[in-house]
């Protein structure tokens, strides 16, 4: 369903207001450290399996595809470099972000959406608690801190997945693969590879919390909010990735 430009501007304004309140709220008491740790556990530890699987199979497939192309140029020894750069610069952050949007963003939107339609958010406000501080700030902080760590895991496991395919399927020497991967990476790759997940984490958490907090229309509304959270977060990750890549390539290399 299309929305009018006026409504679109209003939605962006509301989202920006909530994001500003969340960031300012992070520095004011009460800090809800326990809620933040619970979210960090849920987002970080809870997403490890899916992130490792994503990283492993992405690295493995990337090795198969890139080695086939490189073999034509007699440069199969650069497979490790190609896989490592692709993973650290792009695939690790983007696929990790998309996975977190699907797993964590949908959960946030549906949880907060259910609380909204059952008056739990209003009850919380009536009891003197600011729901932005209690519900949004811990989720945003936890996602921003956990996604870079998960991305590192995805990158490492992806290189290992690529190594497994390189050694056992393509009979490429392990040292050659690993040295090539190590030599190809420099600090700007690591900087970009860790900056992106911070931005993607903030995007997923803020968009998902916003979609959840503005839910209306009962259980159908919860489903709608959940879908919107995943779709908007995913699209924004891809759009922001383009701009971030351009910025990093322009200023950090």
């Amino acid at each position, binding site marked *: 369903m299309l929305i009018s430009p006026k409504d679109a501007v209003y939605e962006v304004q509301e989202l920006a207001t909530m994001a500003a309140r969340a960031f300012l709220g992070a520095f004011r008491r009460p800090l809800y450290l326990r809620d933040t740790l619970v979210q960090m556990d849920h987002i970080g530890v809870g997403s490890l399996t899916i992130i490792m699987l994503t990283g492993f199979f992405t690295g493995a497939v990337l090795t198969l595809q890139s080695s086939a192309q490189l073999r034509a140029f007699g440069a199969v020894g650069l497979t490790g470099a190609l896989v490592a750069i692709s993973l650290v610069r792009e695939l690790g952050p983007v696929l990790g972000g998309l996975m977190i949007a699907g797993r964590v963003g949908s959960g946030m939107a549906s949880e907060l959406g259910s609380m909204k339609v059952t008056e739990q958010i*209003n*009850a919380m406000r*009536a009891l003197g608690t600011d729901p932005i501080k209690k519900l949004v700030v811990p989720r945003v902080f936890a996602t921003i801190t956990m996604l870079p760590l998960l991305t590192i895991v995805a990158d490492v496991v992806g290189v290992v997945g690529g190594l497994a395919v390189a050694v056992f399927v393509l009979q490429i020497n392990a040292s050659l693969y690993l040295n090539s991967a190590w030599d190809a990476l420099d600090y700007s790759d690591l900087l970009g590879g860790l900056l992106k997940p911070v931005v993607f984490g903030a995007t997923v958490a803020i968009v998902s919390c916003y979609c959840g907090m503005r839910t209306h229309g009962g259980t159908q509304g919860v489903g709608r909010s959940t879908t919107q959270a995943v779709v908007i977060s995913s699209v924004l990750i891809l759009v922001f990735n383009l701009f971030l890549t351009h910025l990093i390539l322009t200023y950090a290399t």
Partner: protein
Amino acid sequence: MKAREPRIDTEGPRESGTILELAGVSRFFGDLCVLDRVSLRLARGETKIILGGSGSGKSTLLKILMGLEAPDEGSVYIEGEEITGLSEREMGRIRPKIGMVFQESGLFDSLSVYENVAYRLHELSVPESEIEGRVLKALGFVGLETVVDKFPAEISGGMKRRVALARALISEPDIMLYDEPTAGLDPVTSRRINELIIRLRDTQHVSGIFVTHRLRDAFTLTTEYAEWRNGELRFVQEDGTFCISNTRFVMLHEGKIIFEGPDESLRSSQDPYIRKFLT
């Protein structure tokens, strides 16, 4: 007929002071006017029963009183302080003065009954030893000391409303707002909740706004009072010798107050909408 005398003397704002006031409040949803310049005053110790059909603006009125929604026009005062335009943070100072029972109870489904009732005290970092006593006292008031470890999904609808009442009472508010607390409940459970509200009104003198469209519940509140007799709490029906003057009706229709007064005046009103509503 013998002249009826007020049992509980609340002469209204002049004598006991206005605890809550709405002044010319309007609220629009798009082009729809849900509340149209509504003005209302609640005296200390007084209970107002807001009647009206679905969509008449009753729940919106309560949310505006609680500061959960902002009015488009007009002002809201709690104990003389204007709350219109206060930030969420500033409202945190005002809200402990008010307790609210939501239509669907609004219990946190991931927390146990104990944690729900203790929620506000945990937020205030009250010592656990003190919290336990206060929670059990509040649950004792609503007769639910035995379900402390259960989760909201494991208790009945009536129990949920009573837990919500206990949670609202934990900070010992001066004002209670009830948003259709008996909606969807059987007569016996409704009666039990009404008795708790009467008890709060008559034994603890908590001011209240009771929103409902169920006449039976509304007239229970205007015709019965609670009193301690020989150490036992009794609910007594008013008779010809006195009336309950601290409880008044307010009728909302299409966002406007079309009636305000005692039950006798409501019953004898010739307004066509009120006549239709009462029958």
